[in-house]
C-alpha cells in the first residue's frame, strides 16, 4: 500500500476541495447548490481524516469518517426538507428571498 515514499499532498487536494466548497457556499444563491457545496466541504474533511488515519496507522480517523458520512446524510435530509418548505412558502429557492425570518 504505502511504499517508502508517502504521498504528502493529499491535504493540498483536500484544501482545494474545501476552498471550492467555501467559495461556492459564499457566492451561490441557489439554496440547493449551497447545500451541495456544504457536502464538498464535509468531503474535504473526510479526505484529511482518511489521509491522517492511514499515515499515522490509527483506524480512529476512518471510524470518524463513517460517523461523518451518517451525520452528513442526516444534514442533507433535514436541509432539503427545509428547502422544500421554503419553496412552498415563496415558490423560489433563491436565498435572497429569505432575508427576513418572518413567513
Amino acid at each position, binding site marked *: 500500500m504505502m511504499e517508502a515514499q508517502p504521498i504528502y499532498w493529499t491535504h493540498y487536494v483536500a484544501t482545494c476541495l474545501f476552498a471550492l466548497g467555501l467559495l461556492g457556499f459564499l457566492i451561490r444563491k441557489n439554496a440547493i447548490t449551497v447545500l451541495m457545496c456544504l457536502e464538498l466541504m464535509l468531503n474535504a474533511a473526510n*479526505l484529511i481524516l482518511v489521509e491522517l488515519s492511514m499515515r499515522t496507522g490509527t483506524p480512529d480517523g476512518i471510524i470518524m469518517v463513517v460517523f461523518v458520512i451518517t*451525520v452528513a446524510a442526516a444534514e442533507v435530509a433535514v436541509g432539503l426538507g427545509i428547502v422544500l418548505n421554503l419553496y412552498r412558502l415563496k415558490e423560489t429557492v433563491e436565498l435572497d428571498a429569505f432575508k427576513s425570518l418572518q413567513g
Partner: protein
Amino acid sequence: MKELFFIFFSLYTIAAALGVVLAKNPVYSAFSLILSFFGLSALYVMWGATFIGMIQILVYTGAIVVLFVFVVMLLDLGSVVTDHSHSWLTVMVSAIAVWFFSLLMLRTFNHTPLVAPATPLAESNTRLISQLLFTEYLWPFEILSIFLLALIIAIYALTRPDAADKRKVHP
C-alpha cells in the same frame, strides 16, 4: 505509476468540484457532484481505506445525491435557469477571503507533526474497523441510532403532506 493515478484522480476530483460551484443549472451541479464523489472514492481506495471508498459510493453517490436530484426535479429548478449571481465585488472579496483561509489551512497541515506509524494499517483494515466500531466506539454508535430515530420524526414533521398542496401532480 501510482503517483500518476493519484495525480489524475486528484485533478479530476478538483475539476468536478469546480463544476459543482460554477454550473448555473442545479442539475449540472448535481451531476458534477456525482463525478467528484467518484474521484474521492478512488482516492480513499488508493489510500487503502476500501471500506470508506465503498461507503462513499453507497451513501453519498447512491443516496445523498439522489436526494438532491429528486428535489431539483420535484421543484423543477433545472429548466428555467435564473442567473442571479452576486455582484463581481462580492465574488472577488469572497475569493480573496477563501484564498487566505486555505493558505492558513495549508500552513496548519504542513506544520502538524505526525507520529510515524508504529504498525501501519494493513491492506484489509475493514475487519479491524468493524471490531473497533463495536467495542471502543460502541456508545457513539448507539447514540447515533437515537439520533437517527429523532431524525425520522423530524423529517416527518418537516414534510408532512399538506392538504393545501393543490398544484401538485399526483403520481
